[in-house]
């Protein structure tokens, strides 16, 4: 049974069909790439499956359960976490605190727990700090624990984002353009991290990406969207040679607009 299954997902914004009847299924342990030209509906697709946006029709199943209209914070409890295109972090918190907050679902975080603040609660939440440090070391940000997240260089910010997403111990991590705006060295570092997420942490990864080189290197399979429809799917090699994909990216002689 696939870990993650999307059936006939559609989202309309007025007359525009941003995601049109998309189905895909992802096996546990896979690294899946989701590519497509600008405006293909990749981010909308992410918003639909992560509970940020309600689909017009279609179903999303995660780990055998229907999760179609669950809000984002409930999906985290089930093991599905997403990151965002623009570096979303808590800029006024330290790196350590950012990752620590990522462990929220494991913390005793209620209002009454905070008010009573028993020794057990303190010990429980204090123990999470060690896990946060482990995660920081795993992603390679050791030594930056006390830096303010907002003052990190861009490449580190993107890595910190992944670290925050990794903190809740997801089984499926949706990464929205993790290497956007990064230089070559940072791209390589991020891709190595994505691979180690799967290999060492057992996390299944779906990434939306514009950087074709990165996607081709790291993904097991790639799905291609154009104008909200899935136009191709397969191994990186197959997709790279697919005629419709080449047309979608480069355009054909009489249809420059599609490029």
């Amino acid at each position: 049974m696939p870990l993650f299954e999307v059936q006939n997902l559609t989202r309309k914004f007025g007359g525009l069909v941003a995601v049109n009847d998309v189905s895909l299924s992802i096996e546990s342990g896979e690294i899946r790439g989701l590519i497509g030209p600008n405006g293909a509906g990749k981010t909308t697709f992410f918003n639909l499956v992560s509970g940020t946006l309600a689909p017009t029709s279609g179903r999303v199943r995660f780990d055998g359960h229907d999760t179609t209209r669950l809000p984002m914070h409930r999906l985290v409890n089930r093991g599905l976490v997403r990151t965002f295109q623009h570096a979303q972090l808590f800029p006024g918190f330290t790196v350590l605190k950012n990752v620590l907050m990522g462990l929220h679902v494991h913390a005793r975080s209620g209002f009454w727990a905070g008010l009573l603040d028993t020794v057990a609660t303190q010990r429980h939440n204090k123990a999470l700090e060690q896990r946060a440090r482990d995660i920081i070391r795993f992603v390679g940000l050791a030594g930056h624990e006390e830096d303010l997240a907002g003052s990190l260089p861009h490449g580190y910010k993107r890595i910190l984002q992944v670290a925050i997403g990794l903190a809740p111990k997801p089984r499926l991590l949706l990464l929205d353009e993790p290497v956007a705006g990064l230089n070559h060295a940072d791209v390589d570092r991020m891709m190595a991290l994505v691979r180690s997420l799967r290999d060492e942490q057992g996390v299944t990864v779906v990434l939306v990406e514009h950087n074709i080189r990165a996607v081709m290197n790291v993904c097991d399979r790639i799905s291609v969207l154009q104008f909200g429809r899935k136009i191709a799917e397969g191994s990186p090699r197959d997709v790279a040679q697919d005629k419709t994909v080449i047309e979608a990216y480069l355009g054909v002689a009489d249809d420059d607009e599609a490029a």
Partner: protein
Amino acid sequence: MNRFALPALIVALMGLPLIVHDAYFLHVMVVIGINVVMAVSLWLLGITGLISFGQAGFMFIGAMTTALLTKNLHWSFWIALPLSAAISGLVAAPVGRLSLRVKGVYFFLVTLAFGQVVVGVFAYFENPFGGWYGIRNIPPPQPAVLFGTLDKRAFYYLSLGLVLVTCWIIYRVSRSWFGDVLWSIREGDVLASSIGMDVPGSKLIAFIVSAFFAGAAGSLYASYFGYISPLVFTFEYSVNILVFVVVGGFASMAGPIVGAVVLTTVPELFRVTGKYQTMAFGLILVFSMLAMPQGIIGAWQRFTDRRAGRPIERQSEG
């Protein structure tokens, strides 16, 4: 801060009426206490990134509950106080549900409207709310020997007690994981919900707790002044509370406390100037905002950081 500073301050505040007997001074201290509770309650909402202009509305609900219970039903103030706070919190639940659906300036408008609705409702129904005339002769707390006289000391201790309890609870909450959730929502609500935080639920709890303490402050107000009317719990008062928090600074709970103390005291100092009192208040406000955009506490932190040679940072820890 030195760890003996806070206990020393509390002991000093407790011993103060033994030395100073001046009724006017104690009166100002009681009013400061009420304003501190209001400011701290608003601050809890502020660390969530929400700015409410309806805080006086919740205070009015608490004050009205105490007035009706103690005057019409002859209940003890000591039962009316927690009940007033609870009812204010209870009203906050549906109000928060509705108003927290919108963000930013729209939330500000909805809470403003809420404050006006409370005033409108209490002003419209003369029975039992007293209409625009309000309610007078609200009985003081028991025993009457302590509270029913012109001696303000009992009320001073009552006010101080309410301040300490409020500050202790809100401080604990703000330093807990739940408090960190509120800070996180302020830093980035989309990210907060993506890591499993219940953003609407946490905001609602902050809103209810904030209203709870505003209700308690209202209860104390009603029994201290013995008179409440829609002309007291106005939009202007809501703005004043917000000004306490902004001038004091959001970064830590000391901000709203210092803000409320300073901005309640300063107009009193200028009372002798008569009609220029409000003008002096306004000038101080403008000056402090220009000179200390992070509030008094923010400026103080910058000052101590610079002396300690630490780099100047924004607020980081909760």
